[in-house]
């Protein structure tokens, strides 16, 4: 087995991972040895699918904006579950990040004087979302990629699937990854590590997310005993295309699009009178589902899905072409539908996971609910710093990824270079054992098709842990997941080959999905209130007296162990959330 030594390992290559790599390289002046390990080609991470834009207060005077207002919007959007000290870090850091992306080549849409243009977004009081048409994430990724490949101290490992993180006495000291091209296992030893593996929306079937979003880093951390936070909060994006689930950006409503039911009425009037279609995502998603349930939706024959319309016909055609070209391209190519001529069929789909690896405000991974680990960081969607609380506002995710990408990259490399400890010589044996564990699936003589398990898991989550949840459904889901876990012990992997074995990789991913689905369900069953994206029919109200706290989930012998941590409330006291 090959053993590779690095000062800093970054697992994951989305906006958080690549930003971390760039700032780690810059702040160490190129002296650190850095590795980026990705199960994809680095430039193809799911961040490319981000459409609408990145939030940040760029021009307080002309936009009548302030960082305090951005913080207030974010906290209110989070249904007061966000930690307000972390939100401060986000709103202070965000403008600098947008400027940084300008300096590395993102083609921002511009105003007349050459300034960066900003558009309105859901739950934001003023237009503060900078954008590059509706391909913002893609352009940010390309700029980061073209920047990072010019660095000599940064090694890129494309298509290396990490199977486990090696912990030694509570310190992360490396990881094992399989090179997909030839199925060769490699051990990476490191002084510091950043997990930036993205979200886990693929525990659901109907999702806007890429196939890769299986939460591998989150699941690996969980199995290693690291606590996860607020896992019950899963965001449903109101406007996903029916039947594919492809994302139709919130910017479509930011540019003036309407949501219309089967009676031709803009129904948001009855749910959020002042913000209408630009209310936060949890509210709009509930409104859509309520309309469909009340019989004011349509039904797609192919998939039997209920939907409503996103109507862009009244928008200026040139504006659609200039600001929403990708939406037009997607609807034209997948549905043969021109958004300027026909309304778009949409319904809420899983989009973002607010929960994730429990970290402190600096992105350091917590080894138990209250103590930070040494040498391990997490950034981006896989981490729960908690800036999004119970519901993320659109365009806050790209700022979160870049702000904490910078923080963790800078801190982790500093730690690595100051660290006196060498690489662990006993690690080789451990790594070999872990690699053979992952490969043991190849020898298993099971009779269960792993994809069958995946599809049943998707159905369970889509039905029982969707926009509206009830106790009966959630408990049924818990039982189903447990039975799927048992059946998973009998899976077989047909592909025994060495070249590009996606069958093995996907079986390992499905194992991660089962772990995460169980945590989501367990956390959801136990939060007996409705807050942000988590709405339980039996407990329809927010309960600040008992539930103003974060859920912490840890692996235990009996399954998932839950505990709770208080929310950090500073300037903004909880109040009724009306839009």
């Amino acid at each position, binding site marked *: 087995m090959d053993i590779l030594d690095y000062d800093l390992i970054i697992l994951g290559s989305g906006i958080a991972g690549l930003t971390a790599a760039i700032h780690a390289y810059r702040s160490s002046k190129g002296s650190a040895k850095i590795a980026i390990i990705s199960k994809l080609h680095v430039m193809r991470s799911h961040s490319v699918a981000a459409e609408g834009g990145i939030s940040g207060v760029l021009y307080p005077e002309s936009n009548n904006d302030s960082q305090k207002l951005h913080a207030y919007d974010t906290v209110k959007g989070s249904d007061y579950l966000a930690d307000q000290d972390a939100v401060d870090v986000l709103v202070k850091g965000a403008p600098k990040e947008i400027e940084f992306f300008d*300096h590395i080549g993102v083609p*921002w849409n511009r105003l007349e004087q050459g300034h960066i243009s900003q558009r309105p977004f859901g739950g934001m009081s003023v237009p503060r979302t900078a954008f590059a048409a509706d391909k913002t994430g893609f352009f940010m990724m390309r700029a980061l990629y*073209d*920047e990072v*490949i010019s660095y000599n101290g940064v090694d890129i490992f*494309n298509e290396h699937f990490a199977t486990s993180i090696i912990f030694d006495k509570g310190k992360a000291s490396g990881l094992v990854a399989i090179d997909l091209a030839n199925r060769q296992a490699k051990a990476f030893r490191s002084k510091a590590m950043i997990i930036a593996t993205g979200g886990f929306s693929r525990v659901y079937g109907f999702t806007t997310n890429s196939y890769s979003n299986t939460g591998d880093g989150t699941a690996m951390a969980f199995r290693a005993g690291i606590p996860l936070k607020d896992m019950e909060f899963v965001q449903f994006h109101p406007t996903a295309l029916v039947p594919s689930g492809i994302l139709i950006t919130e910017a479509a409503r930011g540019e003036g699009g309407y949501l219309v039911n089967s009676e031709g009425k803009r129904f948001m009037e009855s749910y959020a009178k002042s913000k209408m279609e630009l209310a936060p995502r949890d509210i709009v998603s509930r409104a859509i589902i309520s309309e469909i349930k009340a019989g004011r939706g349509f039904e797609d024959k192919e998939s039997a899905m209920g939907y409503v319309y996103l109507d862009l016909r009244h928008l200026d055609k040139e504006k659609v072409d200039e600001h929403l070209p990708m939406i037009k391209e997607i609807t034209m190519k997948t549905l043969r539908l021109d958004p300027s001529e026909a309304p778009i069929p949409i319904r809420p789909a899983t989009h973002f996971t607010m929960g994730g690896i429990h970290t402190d405000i600096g992105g350091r991974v917590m080894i138990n609910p209250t103590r930070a680990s040494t040498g391990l960081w997490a950034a981006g969607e896989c981490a729960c710093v908690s800036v999004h609380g119970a519901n993320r506002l659109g365009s806050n995710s790209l700022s979160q990824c870049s702000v904490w990408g910078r923080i963790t990259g800078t801190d982790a490399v500093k730690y690595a270079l100051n660290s006196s400890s060498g690489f662990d010589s006993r690690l080789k044996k451990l790594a070999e054992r872990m690699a053979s564990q992952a490969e043991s699936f190849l020898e298993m003589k099971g009779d269960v098709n792993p994809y069958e398990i995946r599809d049943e898991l998707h159905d369970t989550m889509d039905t029982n842990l969707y926009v509206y949840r009830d106790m009966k459904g959630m408990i049924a889901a818990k039982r189903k997941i447990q039975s799927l876990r048992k059946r998973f012990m009998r899976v077989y992997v047909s*592909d025994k080959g060495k070249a*590009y074995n996606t069958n093995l990789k996907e079986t390992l991913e499905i194992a991660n999905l089962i772990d995460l689905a169980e945590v989501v369900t367990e956390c959801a069953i136990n939060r007996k209130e409705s807050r942000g994206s988590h709405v339980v029919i039996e407990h329809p109200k927010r309960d600040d007296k008992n539930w103003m706290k974060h859920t912490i989930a840890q692996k235990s012998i009996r399954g998932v162990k839950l505990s709770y941590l208080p929310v950090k409330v500073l300037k903004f006291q909880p109040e009724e959330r009306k839009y």
Partner: protein
Amino acid sequence: MRYSKYAIFNYVGILGVPFLIFLMFIYAYLGSPTAVNILSYFLLAGIMIFAATGVKEVYLTKKLEGSKQPIITGETTEHNAVNKASHDTRQVTVTIKRFNSSTNQFDNTSYKFNAAKHTTVLESLLSIKAYGDNSLSVRCNCRMGICGSCGMNINGKQKLACETNLLEVAEDTGTVEVSPMLGHPLLKDLVNDFDSFFEKHKSLHPGLERRNETEKFTAPKEYKQSAEQLDKYLPYSYCIMCGLCLDACPVVNSNPKFVGPQSLSQVYRYYMDSRDQGGKGRLFSADTEDGVWGCEFAGSCSKACPKGVNPSAAIQLLKADLIKDISKEE
């Protein structure tokens, strides 16, 4: 060494041959038009044309050396449908040319598939993988045409599988043939090896350059750019690095050393960005035999690009700027 100094003679040479022949005809007509005279001029012209084509031939054969491996067909298998039919579906036959790395052959595997109105080729392949043969390998990720993973040949055309409608490509015949790209090395089934493609991209130093590197990281404000300045490079910034343009390019397929349309289009993208200060250095990096001058302007890259980037235009514009630059020097 600036290659454009010599490349310019290439063009002079090509135009020069017909010009010479034309001159000879004029001379033959104006001079003493005896039969022997005319015959000897024709003979001379013939030799020159023969020589010119011969040179071109040698040049092309040299390029062809060590390029493509012969394509051998291995096993052929047929299978029943992997999904249920309904009154809204139509059955099509999906034939997958799977590259087998252990035999170095292509195995043809056919599956019946019940396609609905909006089923994409990628969806059918993933269904076949899940419920037909788990060992089928496909590279894919976003399934919305932006990550660039699923470039392949569908009925012989360069396409992204995720944005290709299955029924539309099946048309009346009811059959669809899917194979990996042949302009890139093969790994397994429909999956290509992209290592050399990424190396080519990197070799021309993409990325925004500033004279003062630290300013890039510390400047407190945005660099200003007008909408007109944005439009100059925006169309070239849509490249998703799917590799389809290289697969379509006849030069890449005969001369693996040619850097190809993708990386060259990106040179132009940064060269035209008003924020970039890489200046002429950027141009000169592409000024090589296997850089811009490798392009023979077939235009197939622009036709293949699923994102509407026009690499062949970018390359000709780079050539024009290089020639302008050389003439200024002289």
